[in-house]
């Protein structure tokens, strides 16, 4: 820590994708989510963080990995599919290098993509042994990165607490999943969508979690009123520390009007050769004749126009440097001011979706790289830390109960509870009650019965993923989200019937174990936890 530091900046990247794995087919559009995010976000972020470590930069950053993402990144089937995918990308980029050889502006970009794709395949196979979790684990061991976990299937907890065991199962399985992948205990827990409701902290405490993060008003509206606003964490009565999101630093990155990613020099997300070029030419690289993004994009945002100018990589990187400097300058002024009015060093907590970096905002990883380098070498006002570091520095914190909140639109539950998706809760709650009933009735089951109970728990957890309700709300790919909800609930219901009627079908159980193969260490008894009392 810098000796003269006046405060702290905690950057938190939350990486999550819904569990999309269909072992029986490669022929579904949704599979592209993982493949393109590996190339565009996860590998570039690992590159940036590894580069910082290799250069001896002393920094700290927090990365949250959701259990479904951990499961997918470590899945051999999906790893092979990524290799197949990136190999096709390489083939296309080779064609593009040839096709654009006459064009002095586009040709260097085609070469850039070709290099990126070759690099992605190389590091994916050789450096990380196909499992990017190895890369994250290495960064954690290096001391630069603090990895934290999240709920089992990214369930939105405030809408689950009608059946408390559902909340505790989401948390228990999320923590266990982290342990099984990283062989260590998570210090922090990312609440999916920052969804907090009072009581969740008690379950987190039972699993040894030291801190979590809420949206600004989760802490600001806590009771008693927090003395330091969101610029210091509060302790829940359970002992879990809660950090609140800083509005200002979020706005600079997220805001559609003022945010950096919309800058005219940055790469445009929508102009992609998958849409722009002749259908026959791109056909092998799109989805069954349906045009999709190929990841090769030659234009910049340009402005509010359809007439997009060609992307200039150097100009974009220059802009990323300016934006990194601007972000640093604003944090310096903000922290200087806060330090002048508070009687302790303030912490500014800046959480972002990891997928923003690289996937949506192409230059995001470079911006982060420059921000960290500049923060470490060009200023002394703040130090980059993780929430755990802060709790080591300031052991004493105010006790208050955070307010129910989320970082979704309007700040509460409406994104996941509205006329497009409210029908799911009747079914989810019923299945949750049935799962609790099973876990209590069949304690210490073994053999086939145990496998059936564990699979029932998997199906329930998969149905609870907040992604399905979110997709229903956004109105695109709704069929897929509805189908996933119905199928997981349907499979749960069938398993429930088989179990309670003492007619468990080994073939059916085996088939579902193969089809919905998440959480290999699943233990259904998380739905009938031993009560921990304070007496």
């Amino acid at each position, binding site marked *: 820590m810098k000796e003269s530091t006046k405060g702290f900046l905690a950057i938190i990247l939350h990486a999550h994708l819904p569990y999309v794995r269909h072992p029986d087919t490669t022929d579904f559009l949704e599979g592209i989510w993982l493949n393109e995010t590996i190339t565009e976000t996860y590998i570039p972020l690992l590159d940036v963080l590894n580069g910082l470590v290799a250069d001896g930069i002393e920094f700290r950053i927090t990365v949250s990995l959701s259990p479904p993402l951990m499961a997918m990144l470590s899945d*051999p089937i999906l790893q092979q599919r990524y290799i197949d995918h990136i190999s096709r990308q390489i083939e296309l980029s080779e064609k593009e290098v040839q096709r654009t050889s006459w064009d002095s502006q586009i040709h260097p970009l085609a070469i850039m993509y070709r290099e990126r794709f070759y690099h992605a395949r190389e590091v994916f196979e050789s450096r990380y042994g196909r499992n990017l979790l190895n890369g994250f684990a290495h960064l954690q061991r290096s001391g630069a990165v603090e990895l934290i976990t999240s709920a089992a299937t990214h369930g939105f907890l405030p809408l689950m607490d009608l059946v408390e065991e559902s909340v505790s199962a989401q948390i228990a399985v999320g923590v266990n999943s982290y342990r099984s992948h990283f062989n260590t205990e998570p210090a922090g827990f990312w609440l999916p969508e920052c969804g907090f409701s009072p009581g969740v902290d008690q379950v987190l405490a039972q699993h040894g979690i030291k801190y979590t993060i809420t949206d600004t008003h989760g802490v600001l509206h806590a009771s008693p009123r927090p003395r330091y606003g969101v610029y210091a964490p509060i302790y829940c009565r359970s002992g879990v520390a809660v950090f609140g999101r800083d509005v200002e630093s979020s706005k600079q990155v997220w805001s559609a009007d003022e945010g950096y990613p919309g800058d005219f020099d940055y790469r445009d997300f929508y102009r992609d050769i998958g849409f722009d070029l002749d259908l026959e030419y791109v056909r092998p690289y799109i989805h069954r004749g349906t045009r999709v993004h190929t990841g090769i994009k030659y234009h910049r945002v340009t402005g509010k126009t359809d007439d997009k100018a060609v992307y200039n990589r150097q100009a974009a990187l220059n802009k990323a440097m300016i934006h990194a400097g601007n972000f640093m300058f604003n944090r310096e002024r903000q922290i200087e001011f806060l330090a002048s009015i508070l009687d302790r060093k303030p912490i500014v907590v800046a959480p972002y979706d990891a997928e*923003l970096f690289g996937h949506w905002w192409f230059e995001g990883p470079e911006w982060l790289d420059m921000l960290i380098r500049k923060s470490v070498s060009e200023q002394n006002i703040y130090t980059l830390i993780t929430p755990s570091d802060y709790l080591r520095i300031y052991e004493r914190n105010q006790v208050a109960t955070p307010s129910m909140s989320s970082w979704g639109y309007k700040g509460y539950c409406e994104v996941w509870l509205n006329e497009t998706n409210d029908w799911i809760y009747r079914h989810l709650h019923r299945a949750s009650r049935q799962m609790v009933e099973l876990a209590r009735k069949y304690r210490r089951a073994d053999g086939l019965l145990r496998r059936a109970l564990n699979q029932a728990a998997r199906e329930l957890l998969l149905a609870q993923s907040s992604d399905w309700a979110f997709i229903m709300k956004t109105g695109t790919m*709704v069929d897929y989200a509805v189908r996933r909800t*119905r199928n997981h*609930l349907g499979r749960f219901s069938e398993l429930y019937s088989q179990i309670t009627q003492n007619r468990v079908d080994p073939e*059916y159980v085996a088939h579902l174990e193969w089809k919905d193969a998440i959480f290999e260490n699943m233990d259904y008894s998380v739905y009938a936890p031993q009560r921990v009392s304070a007496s």
Partner: protein
Amino acid sequence: MQDSAGMTGREKKNRIEMGEDIPAIQNTDSPSGLYTLESPGRSIPGSSIPAERPAFAVQEPLPPAPDPPEYFLPRRYDETILSLMVRDPYWVYAYWDISTTDVCRIDRDHGYGAWSAGSKILRVYDVTDGGAHLGRALMNIGIGDDSASWYINVPEANRAYCADMVLITPAGREIVLARSNSVFTPRDGVSDVIDEEWMVLREYDRLYWMSAGFGPSSPEFQRRFVARAMKHRLLMGSQLLAAGFSPAGPWGAEHSKGGMSGGSRIRLRAEISKIDNARAEMSNTNRARHQQNRTGRS
């Protein structure tokens, strides 16, 4: 669902809920009928990652597919239930069902037609200061026979609510059919409570018990740790207050002057909403492109 196009806002809000709003679904999880089977247990050549798959994964030969291509959820479960969920400080969502058995019993006890001719009321209570029997009924919402859910606009944030589903028979008799769970709506501003309590969590608490052989996974450890932490915290809180820690720090002082309770708070919410809008837009556009892809932009 997307089935609400063409409905008025009120129709949407009060629509028939069970089953009917679930759109028709294509077969299987994945849209394709093609099956390119892969073994879940095969090792990856050249990979340094252990190839073992979950013990539960089935090795070749693959099991037949006893999984139906499509599952349907029932319209209702024929159970008597009334559940409340909080949407935000001012809206609570209710869903319900009344079992056929209960309907028959009502007709048996109160005369045939008592159910069908009676009025169904959703009665909402403020139970912040006690149970429904003590609480005051805030509102009666008339419910159509076909309704199974409702968004309730509650008058105050930071309050506890519960509801009863009530049948008023043609003879004027009130019968409580179901009582809901209680929910607590969140605060919509900063807390009025400014008494401060402070806490130190000491690692030695944990180390002490771990040294005594209680690992973090042991329920006994958890129980004793929680007990000890709670005891310790209460001590710390009172000690600190006694030591003269002011309840109004720099922020508290600002707040107590009203600086944060009025305009600034609204501005803060506006800023948060702007950011959330931007996030939603990005997510929407991100996913929208997949939709565009389906329609084949060219």
